[in-house]
């Protein structure tokens, strides 16, 4: 569903990604793990078009999308829930969700009716968001904002979701909740690429995992192999 081939990207003169190659099959949950500064977030940004790749290819559902604007890639069915959640603080929870579905809704009127089924699904997944739907997103707790960010990505009814550090800055008990959600999404057949610092939690839910180091994919393994690779766990995952 999503294939990345030899991706090079960076900021200014510094090249952060030096040939990243990875693949996420339909319905798979693939984890991207590695130490701080390995280039995980940069990989996400280069896939979704927030950062223009210098070289390499990004293929979304059989179509090359590298070089397109971020909003165009989003419209082709890629949902990127960015690091730090980035909910629209002044807007209400429901407006955030509606904007998540922007690509498939009418721009002027009648969008609420078109979005009803999607809203119901997200509220079913996160009942707390329903309780707070008229509240400004900026006033939610960190955990709730993360739920909103995931819900917003789901609203697009995307082909692939990129989830960047969903556990960042959250209390351990909330992190568990977030991973329970990710597990449910996987069971529902969602295609996901997950970046995580908490490698052990990520490996527990993922089908496969890539380990990144200094802008390259170090190795690709099944999660079982990785979990039993003591040396690797020590070195990269803490």
């Amino acid at each position: 569903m999503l294939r990345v081939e030899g991706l090079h990207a960076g900021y200014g003169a510094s090249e952060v990604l030096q040939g990243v190659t990875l693949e996420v099959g339909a319905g798979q949950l693939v984890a991207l793990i590695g130490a701080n500064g390995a280039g995980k977030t940069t990989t996400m940004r280069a896939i979704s078009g927030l950062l223009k790749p210098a070289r390499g290819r990004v293929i979304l559902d059989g179509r090359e999308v590298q070089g397109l604007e971020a909003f165009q890639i989003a419209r082709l069915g890629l949902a990127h829930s960015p690091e730090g959640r980035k909910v629209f603080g002044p807007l209400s929870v429901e407006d955030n969700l509606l904007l998540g579905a922007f690509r498939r809704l009418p721009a002027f009127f009648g969008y609420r009716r078109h979005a009803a089924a999607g809203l119901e699904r997200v509220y079913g997944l996160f009942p707390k968001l329903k309780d707070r739907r008229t509240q400004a997103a900026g006033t939610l707790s960190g955990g709730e904002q993360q739920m909103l960010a995931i819900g917003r990505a789901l609203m697009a009814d995307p082909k692939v979701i990129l989830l960047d550090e969903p556990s960042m800055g959250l209390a351990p008990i909330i992190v568990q909740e977030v991973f329970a959600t990710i597990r449910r999404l996987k069971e529902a057949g969602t295609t996901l690429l997950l970046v995580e610092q908490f490698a052990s939690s990520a490996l527990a839910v993922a089908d496969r995992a890539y380990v990144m180091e200094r802008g390259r994919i170090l190795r690709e393994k099944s999660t079982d192999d990785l979990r039993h690779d003591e040396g690797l766990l020590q070195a990269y995952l803490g």
Partner: protein
Amino acid sequence: MTAAVLAQVVVSGALMGLVYALVAYGFQLTYATSKSINFGQGELVMVSAFVSLSLVNAGLPYGLVLPAGMLFGALLGLFVERAGVRLALEQKSEGWILMTIILGLFFLSAAENVWGRDDRPFPTPISSDPIHLLGVDITPLEISVAVGVFAVMGLVELFKRVTLLGKAFEAVSADRDAAELMGISARRAIMLSYGLSGMVAALAGILVSPITTVGPTMSSTLILKAFSVAVVAGLDSGFGVVVVGILLGALEAVTSLTVGSGWREAPGLVLLILALAVRPTGVFGKATIRKV
């Protein structure tokens, strides 16, 4: 001075204040998507008014001059965005401040060269024979100003609050990158807001010109007051600019009557300084919520 005279002056001043409000509203529109404003907004008002005047003189009926002038204003707004703002915003720089000032000066020189430096009357089919209404004299021309201001602001506010595209505007303002990830083109949203802002500026010019005449100096007078209104009201409340605009217009007229016409500009500046000192987010502005 009788109460009747005072009431008369307050009403005329308040109507003038609505024009300040409309120009200030043009600031708000672009600020809402891009956190940038066109410092040459006054020149947009003036050039659009001159173009509309030329259209009137060319024999175009008023009913067509109005939409044509507004269309011209919108195109001029788009030009400002393309030439002065886009590059600066994409590089996250503040260069748009200087660029919009420069474009404004450019429009001013161009207007002086094309239309001359004199103030000229702006003929209109709307009557300026006063009607006696609740003890004050008010002209249909003045009423048309109020109707025009409320109609266009009402429509634009409706667009911003009710439509999904309007909400997308706010999303672009809150977080440009995140908005792009939703499939919203931040560039197009910003372009649209500059187009709308230019349209609103043109409408202000067409509405006010028959009352004040058209001239190259109208831009600096209007911009200063509109700026005061925008700062005092805050840059995110359409309702706020109307209230503050009316207040300022009335206050100016009363000052001019009681203290002397030389003091006409004083209330706006005093309000501006007071607002900046006491409440920099504006009376109707909301402090941004930031939670990390």
